[in-house]
């Protein structure tokens, strides 16, 4: 049986959106897939050694909030200072309570399972990012490098 391939482009750098790339990649690897994730723009935040990702209720009407706040709390209120850190704290606590893995753990499991992590070199230059802030074992490359693998993939996702 030929090995199946999963290619993912990770473009988002918030706590909630950091999960899908790492959950899907680690699971696919456990199922025997060969996996590559290409991190671009805000997705680069997922490669930092020290993750400090936030979640915001701002402009996100689908986000369930405590005490039914999503039903009665004024939309503008979600822009209040401190709202983002409160929601981030609550989300992290909820995740820990429900036995959802931390991002660090999932990322480590991905690396253990030989999921290849590729950082977009252009984004690194664009935002003057310091590669010393990123975890070890990642590759820096461009769009053509992504297609080398994606072109032969069975599943290709843009997240």
């Amino acid at each position, binding site marked *: 049986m030929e090995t199946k391939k999963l290619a993912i482009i990770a473009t988002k750098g918030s706590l909630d959106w950091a999960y899908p790339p790492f*959950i899907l990649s*680690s*699971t696919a690897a*456990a*199922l*025997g897939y060969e996996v590559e994730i290409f991190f671009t723009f805000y997705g680069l935040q997922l490669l930092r050694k020290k993750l400090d990702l936030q979640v915001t209720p701002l402009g996100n009407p689908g986000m369930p909030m405590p005490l039914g706040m999503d039903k009665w709390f004024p939309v503008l209120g979600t822009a209040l200072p401190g709202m983002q850190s409160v929601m981030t704290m609550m989300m992290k606590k909820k995740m820990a309570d429900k*036995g959802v*893995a931390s991002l660090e753990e999932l990322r480590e*499991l991905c690396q253990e399972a030989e999921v290849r992590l590729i950082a977009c070199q252009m984004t690194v230059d664009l935002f003057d990012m310091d590669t010393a802030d990123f975890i070890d074992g990642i590759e820096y490359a461009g769009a053509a490098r992504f297609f080398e693998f994606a072109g032969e993939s069975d599943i290709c996702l843009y997240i």
Partner: protein
Amino acid sequence: MADFDDELDASGLNCPLPILRAKKSLTAMESGKILHIIATDPGSVKDFEAFSKQTGNSLLESREEGGKFHFLIKKS
């Protein structure tokens, strides 16, 4: 419950951890050995069926008992 060689308690863990831990345990086992997995995530019932189908490790048993899910997987 039939005999098993190794046991993995994934109680309290949520998707995809039970699958990832099971995969890790199976990797360390010899072919033909049986792994008993205990989980509390209701999604794990369908997930272990799918895992077994896709990896070729046979799911010998899947049942619920006292709010926990028990699986027996034989390493291919």
